[in-house]
C-alpha cells in the first residue's frame, strides 16, 4: 500500500510540473527548465555518491561534454555548409576542424551527447578503481580533471570559443529556439527525460545491481570477498552517472542558450554535489527537490545580494554535512535525534550498543 502512495505523490508532482507552462512566467519557466535539467545530473550523483559511495568533484566535466557537443551542433546548424563560426575566424583558423564537422549531423550529435560522457566517465572510473585507489583520491582526481577541463577550454580559444564559450544558438532541427511554443516544448521534453531517468534509476536501484552498489558502499572488502567485483560495479555506476550528466548538460543549454568554461569548472562541479547533499544524497526524490531548491535559492540570493551567496553556500556545506548528512528528507529523523539528546533517552542506546 505504501508503495502506491509514493507513486501517487510522484505522479501528482509530475502533473504539477507538467502544467507549469500555464501558470509560470516565461522567465521562471526557463529557470525551472534549467533546474529540471540539472536534476537529471543529480540523479546520477545520487546513484554514485548516495548509493555507491563514490564522490566525484568533476561532474561538471561530463555535463560540459554533453553541453559542448550539442552547442557545437547548434552552432553548425545555423551556418551554411562551408562557413565556420565567427570566433574561429577571429582566431585565424583556415577551415572548420573535422572533429567539429561530424556534429553537423543531428543524430551524431545526439549520440555524442550520450556516448562521449559515458565512455569518458567509465574509462576514468575503471583506471582508478581497478587499481583499488581509495575514494578520496578519486574525488581529488576528478577535481583536478574539472580544473584541467575548464582551463583547456579557455586556452584553446580557436576551437572552443575560449572564455566566452559558445552562444547565440538559433535553430535546432529546423525550429526557432526563441519561439515561445518551442521553449514550452523543450520544457516538456526536459521534464519527460527527467521522469524517464527517474523511473529508470529507481528501477535500477531496486534490482540486484542496486543492492550490490549499496553493499560496496557499506563494505567494499566484504562485497569483494562475496565474489563481486567492486571496480566493475563502480565503473558501471559512474558511467551511468556520466551519461545522465551529458544529457543534463545538453538539455540545460537549450534553456540557457549559452555554455562557457565558467559553468563546467571546479566550483560549478562542487555546487552540483551540494545540491544533492541538501536534498538527501540517497533519496532520488530528495535530490530532485534539493536541486530545485538550491538552484532557485542561488538565483534569488545572488540576484539580490551577490556577495551573500558564497557565505550561504559555504554555510550550507558545513551544516548539511555535520547536522543533516542525509539531507532535508531526513528532517524528521533529526527531530528524533534532537529529542533523544535533550531527554537523554537511554533506551535508544541500549538497543544500538555504545558504538552506534
Amino acid at each position, binding site marked *: 500500500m505504501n508503495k502506491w502512495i509514493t507513486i501517487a505523490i510522484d505522479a501528482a508532482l509530475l502533473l504539477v510540473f507538467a502544467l507549469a507552462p500555464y501558470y509560470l512566467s516565461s522567465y521562471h519557466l526557463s529557470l525551472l527548465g534549467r533546474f529540471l535539467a540539472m536534476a537529471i545530473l543529480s540523479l546520477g550523483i545520487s546513484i554514485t555518491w548516495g548509493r555507491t559511495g563514490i564522490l566525484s568533484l568533476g561532474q561538471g566535466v561530463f555535463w560540459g561534454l554533453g553541453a559542448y557537443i550539442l552547442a557545437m551542433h547548434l552552432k553548425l546548424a545555423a551556418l551554411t555548409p562551408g562557413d565556420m563560426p565567427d570566433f574561429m575566424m577571429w582566431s585565424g583558423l583556415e577551415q572548420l576542424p573535422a572533429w567539429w564537422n561530424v556534429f553537423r549531423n543531428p543524430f551524431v550529435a545526439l549520440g555524442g551527447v550520450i556516448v562521449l560522457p559515458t565512455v569518458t566517465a567509465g574509462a576514468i572510473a575503471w583506471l582508478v578503481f581497478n587499481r583499488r585507489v581509495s575514494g*578520496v583520491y578519486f574525488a581529488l582526481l576528478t577535481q583536478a580533471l574539472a580544473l*584541467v577541463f575548464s582551463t583547456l577550454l579557455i586556452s584553446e580559444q580557436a576551437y572552443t570559443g575560449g572564455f566566452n564559450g559558445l552562444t547565440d544558438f538559433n535553430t535546432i532541427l529546423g525550429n526557432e529556439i526563441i519561439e515561445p511554443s518551442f521553449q514550452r516544448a523543450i520544457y516538456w521534453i526536459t521534464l519527460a527525460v527527467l521522469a524517464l531517468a527517474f523511473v529508470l534509476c529507481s528501477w535500477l536501484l531496486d534490482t540486484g545491481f542496486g543492492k550490490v552498489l549499496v553493499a560496496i558502499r557499506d563494505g567494499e572488502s566484504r562485497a569483494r570477498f562475496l565474489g563481486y567485483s567492486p571496480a566493475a560495479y563502480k565503473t558501471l555506476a559512474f558511467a551511468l552517472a556520466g551519461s545522465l550528466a551529458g544529457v543534463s548538460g545538453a538539455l540545460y543549454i537549450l534553456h540557457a542558450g549559452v555554455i562557457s568554461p565558467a559553468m563546467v569548472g571546479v566550483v560549478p562541479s562542487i555546487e552540483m554535489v551540494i545540491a544533492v547533499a541538501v536534498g538527501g544524497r540517497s533519496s532520488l526524490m530528495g535530490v530532485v527537490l534539493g536541486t530545485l531548491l538550491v538552484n532557485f535559492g542561488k538565483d534569488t540570493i545572488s540576484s539580490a545580494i551577490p556577495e551573500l551567496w558564497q*557565505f550561504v553556500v559555504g554555510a550550507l556545506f558545513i551544516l548539511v554535512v555535520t547536522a543533516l548528512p542525509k539531507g532535508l528528507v531526513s528532517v524528521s529523523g533529526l527531530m528524533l535525534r534532537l529529542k533523544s539528546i535533550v531527554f537523554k533517552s537511554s533506551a535508544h542506546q541500549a538497543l544500538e550498543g555504545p558504538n552506534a
Partner: protein
Amino acid sequence: MGQLAIIAGQLFNGISVGSILLLIALGLALSFGLMNVINMAHGEMLMVGGYLSYLACKIVHGPMSLLFAFLFAFIGAALLGGLLEITVIRWLYGRPLDTLLATWGVSLILQQGARSLFGPIGVEVVAPSWLAGAVSFDHGAFAGLSMPYIRIFIIVLTLVVLVLLVLFIARTRWGLYLRAVHQDREMAQALGVNTKLVDLLVFSVGAGVAGLAGAALAFIAPVTPTVGQKYIVYAFLVVIVGGLGSLFGTTIAAVSVGLVSSSVQMFTSVSLADVFLLILVIVFIQFRPRGIIYARSRNMKEV
C-alpha cells in the same frame, strides 16, 4: 640564451614551484595520513598567510619585516587551522568525504571573507631590498640565466621547514606520539597518548606551514582571495603521488610535479602541461596506486 641556460632555468623554476607545492602538501599529507581528513580549506590557509604577511609588512618596516611576515603568517594560519579542527573537523572523524565537503564550505566562506575585506583585486607585498636582486650569469655556458634571490630564499626556507619537521617527528616526544597514532590509533590511545591533542597539533602545524607558503608566495605574486585554489589542486596531486607513508615521499612527489610541469611548459602551453600532468598521475597510480612510499598494513581499514 644558450640551450643549457634555458634548461637550467626551467630546472630552477621547477624546483622553485615544487618547493612551494611541498610547503602546501606537507600539511595535507600529514593530516590525511594521520586523521584521514581531507582539508579543502588548506589553500585558504595559504591565502590567510599571504594576507597576514601583507599586513605585517604594513605595520613593520625595514629589513626585519620579512621575519615578522613569516612569523605572523605561521602563527595566524596555525591558529586558524586549530580553530577549524576544533569546530568542524573533530566532529567528522572517520568520514573523509564529508570532511572534504565541510572544509570546502569553510574555504568558500574564507574566500568571500577575504574578498569583502581586501577586495577582489590582489594586494602586493614588496620584498625587502636585500632580496630584490638575482643571481645572473653573463658569461660562460649559463649566460642569460638569472635566479631571483627571492626564489632561492623560498627554496632555502622550504629546506629549513622540512629539516625542522623531520627533527620534530624523529626526535621529540610529540613526534613519537605522532608516529604512534599514525601506526595504530587505538593502541596509542590505550597507552595514554592524548590523540585529540596530537590531531590538533598536527593540523595546526600543517596549516601554519601552508601559511608560510602563502607568505613566501606573496613576495612573488599578488595575494588574491582565490590564490589558494590555484595551488591546492596540484598539492592534492602531490599527496596522491607521494603516498602517506613519509615526508620523503611527499618531497620527491612535490619536486617531480614541479619539474614535470615546468619542463613540459617548455614545449607546450600551460594548460596542455596541466593535461599532461594529470594523465601522468593517472598512469602513475596504475603502477603505484598508493603513492611512492606508503605505510604497509594488514589492517582491512578502507580509506
